[in-house]
């Protein structure tokens, strides 16, 4: 294998994607700290636990200041000593705020906030790889992670400290703070996004005054993602937070929330990278529908409007989401959308891509969906019949054909009279086409029939 690879290398020199990736991985670290301050070497301070309690506050504050020094992690050989001092200090600070009571005095808040802001708030660096494909490529990791991770850790412990007082903290953890935090969700580094998710969730929980603002800014990020840039790394994480937020919405839903569902979440299904956050998105949608079943019809109509035309992978995701919605749908809502919905499902069942057809046919394994279909068999069967009957004879994939037979059988059992009528009219329709073709000698019509051959034998 390796010999072949080098031989092709010589002939062409096109490195294969796997090899290019291997090369990339080595240097896939980025960082963007626009430094203006000059570096001074850090000198170690005494341990907090060794200091007399009267001096602890002062020492705590000195350590927080020390941790405001930023280092260049793209250069792995400079300032090694100072970097280590800062790392150890951060570790100590994390420990200090998580194990001690009474350390969060009012004067500490501005210094804590200053240390956190200085370290984590930065303009994210340009992507190393301009055509970064989150599904394929390795992400660029944050080079300064050894420090930043500890700062995030510290922030979390700070927020979770039993003495933590939102009423004091809100002077520092304000709208501007949240805005900068949200911008960081675009980080390519999944470790960072994971911390951000927890941090934002805590802030949403503790600062009631920021809730509407946070929702609004997430709304803006999503709209920009959908209609302007088509790129934002933290969509899945933000949706995950939203999932639990929606869960707590009071009834009846406010107009603002409904608008968010219809104008943001539903259009979000059109995004190129849907696969990266579809699970979280579908969860949010279903949460909404469980809260307010009246929204089912517009949501399903929205999904049908944006139904993928060429991307089979996405179509499978849409079908999965439809099944999740049908799992919680109320029978009255089902009646409202059954016609357009089953027209789409009928097209999916007849899709030449077997995964799409298979996913749609799996609906018939769902007891609740089956009961809904049975209740409305006179509406559903006529829509589905043509596709099902045709592909039972024609689909290239034997698994699909077997599945379709089972589905046809189930449907027949639900209403055999209607089934026979449909079979008869289907056959006579086909015969009529055949007769017309022979009468007019229309070549193209005969061609159509040729494509349809094998229908009658069953």
């Amino acid at each position, binding site marked *: 294998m390796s010999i072949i690879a080098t031989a092709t*290398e*010589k*002939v*062409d*020199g*096109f490195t294969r994607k796997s090899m290019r990736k291997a090369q990339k991985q080595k240097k896939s670290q980025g960082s*963007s700290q*626009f*430094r203006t301050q000059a570096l001074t070497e850090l000198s170690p301070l005494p341990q907090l636990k060794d200091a007399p309690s009267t001096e602890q506050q002062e020492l705590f504050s000195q350590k927080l200041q020390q941790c405001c020094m930023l280092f260049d992690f793209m250069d792995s050989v400079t300032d090694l000593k100072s970097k280590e001092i800062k790392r150890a200090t951060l570790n100590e600070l994390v420990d200090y705020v998580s194990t001690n009571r009474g350390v969060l005095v009012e004067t500490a808040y501005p210094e804590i906030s200053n240390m956190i802001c200085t370290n984590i708030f*930065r*303009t994210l*660096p*340009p992507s190393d790889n301009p055509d970064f494909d989150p599904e394929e490529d390795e992400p660029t990791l944050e080079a300064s992670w050894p420090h930043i991770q500890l700062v995030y850790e510290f922030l979390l412990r700070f927020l979770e400290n039993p003495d933590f007082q939102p009423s004091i903290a809100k002077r520092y953890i304000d709208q*501007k703070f949240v*805005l900068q935090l949200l911008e960081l969700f675009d980080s390519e580094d999944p470790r960072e996004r994971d911390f951000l998710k927890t941090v934002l969730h805590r802030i949403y929980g503790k600062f009631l005054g920021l809730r509407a603002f946070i929702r*609004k800014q997430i709304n*803006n990020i999503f*709209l*920009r993602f*959908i*209609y*302007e840039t088509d790129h934002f790394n933290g969509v899945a994480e933000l949706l995950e937070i939203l999932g639990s937020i929606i869960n707590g919405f009071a009834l009846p839903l406010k107009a603002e929330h409904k*608008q968010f569902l219809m*104008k943001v979440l539903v*259009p979000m299904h059109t995004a190129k990278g849907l696969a990266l956050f579809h699970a979280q998105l579908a969860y949010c949608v279903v949460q909404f529908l469980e809260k307010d079943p009246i929204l089912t019809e517009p949501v399903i109509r929205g999904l049908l*409007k944006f139904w993928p035309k060429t991307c089979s992978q996405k179509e499978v995701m849409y079908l999965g989401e439809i099944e999740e919605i049908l799992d919680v749908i109320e029978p009255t809502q089902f009646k409202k959308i059954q016609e357009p919905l089953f027209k789409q499902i009928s097209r999916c069942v007849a899709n030449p891509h077997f995964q799409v057809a298979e996913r749609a046919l799996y609906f018939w394994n769902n007891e609740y969906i089956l009961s809904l279909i049975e209740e409305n068999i006179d509406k559903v069967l006529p829509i589905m019949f043509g596709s099902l009957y045709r592909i039972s004879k024609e689909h290239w994939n034997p698994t699909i054909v077997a599945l379709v037979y089972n589905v046809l059988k189930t449907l027949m059992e639900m209403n055999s009279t209607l089934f026979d009528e449909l079979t008869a009219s289907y056959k006579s329709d086909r015969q009529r086409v055949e007769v017309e073709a022979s009468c007019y000698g229309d070549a193209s019509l005969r061609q159509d029939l040729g494509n349809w051959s094998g229908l009658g034998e069953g």
Partner: protein
Amino acid sequence: SVEKEAPGGGADGDDSLYPIAVLIDELRNEDVQLRLNSIKKLSTIALALGVERTRTELLPFLTDTIYDEDEVLLALAEQLGNFTMLVGGPEYVHCLLPPLESLATVEETVVRDKAVESLRKISQEHSPVDLEVHFEPLVKRLASGDWFTSRTSACGLFSVCYPRVSSTVKAEIRQHFRTLCSDDTPMVRRAAASKLGEFAKVLELDYVKSDIISLFTALASDEQDSVRLLAVEACVSIATLLPQEDLETLVMPTLRQAAEDKSWRVRYMVADKFSELQKAVGPEITKNDLVPAFQNLLKDCEAEVRAAAANKVKEFCENLPEDSRETIIMTHILPCVKELVSDTNQHVKSALASVIMGLSTILGKDNTVEHLLPLFLAQLKDECPEVRLNIISNLDCVNEVIGIRQLSQSLLPAIVELAEDAKWRVRLAIIEYMPLLAGQLGVEFFDEKLNTLCMAWLIDHVYAIREAATCNLMKLVEKFGAEWAQNTIVPKVLGMANDPNYLHRMTTLFCINSLSEACGQEITTKQMLPVVLKMSNDQVANVRFNVAKSLQKIGPVLDSSALQTEVKPVLEKLATDTDMDVKYFAQEAISVLALA
């Protein structure tokens, strides 16, 4: 009404309207493609309905049906921009506003932008009175809409109506624009920032100074970098409008701040717009302010920014005031450029390599030899092929100033290395510069050093390279003449006709195809034709049918006796070949050359 005209309802017996009824029916068809087709024929429908029914029936119908697929809406938005005559001319153009207003509020950006474009277009067709009575109220409604989409659309409409309305309305428009600049959704602020320059251009100078500058300053320090960077773009237009003496106080503080913004995107924008900014602020400010700013951008910590600045080095230097140009370049710019030559990022180096040669014309012979030449030579040895290629592709600039001889010693190894690069795209790129290089280096140097390379490409593993090599030979012959071809390349090309590899034998034929015209009748008839004819007996069918194709190609260069006595019998024989393709191409050649 229009709806009743649909097929089945057209019982009024007016046959001429039947096709229209079909089109209208299609507007409601389930199939998107049919609806799209119908929308695209909207002008036909309107023409047939006549101006009055278009106004009273078609437009209300369209306004009511705007909930369609974005593709259909886009087509509709575009169509309506050209509808003025179809509704009865400028007098009635305001009838088009309701459907366009709805389209300007949809979510999909493409549709919205198209609707705004059409609105801007038809605004010009409104009379001043109609503009105030119909158009301006629409702009106001959009500007105060609930959902952000209508407010973003409004941003694009202020500048088209402002110049033609009364001063009271003007004041209202300015107020609306001001409000949108501080809108709480960043999408709207971005839209406002991107139209700031355009709006400034239609405002009276006093208002530029009072209104626009404060908006510009606010947007340039917005919390979102996506807004701030758009303010940089506006900076160019604004600076152009202001008298020189006001620039320092009104614009420069903001521009300086942008050049040092904490977000690299904003600094990138400054670097990217640097030449425009330089022209807009004039020579004095350039000398005092932009030179240090440019130095900082060339030394920026983010490679993206350095690359954008490196791209502007030549233009920036060219546009420096003449009296101090050389001093500034030598003392301020060149030291930064020297550092960029050994930058860690290849995009930076390659951006620099694409413009650095241009400095030689600005600095003249002596400075080029002393200061620039070492840089060119260093870049010619760069590890990244793109850098070397960019230097080689701009050799003509240096040639004019110092002559290429100065470089030739270093040039040759660089060319040879690129010519043998493992990546075929790199080889392809250097082949494309061969004719240029040959012209500048002269025939002797070429024969001595480069000819072998050019011939070696003819037997490259990659077809694209062989093909490019063939084309290259033709260009060289055009440059150096038929005699040169006869002595140097034709014998080698013809020699390949006996190669054991059929691909190489075919290359002979491809070369003959492209060389025959440049070489002329004599060489073609006496030297090339016999080889081609001999190859008609090749064992490989692909070679034989390429013989037929070659004969067809070189036929017009040959004289008629050669055609009749030599070409015709061979083609006739090939036309009875056992291989289908050989037969086909032989017959084709016979008919094209009229030998039947």
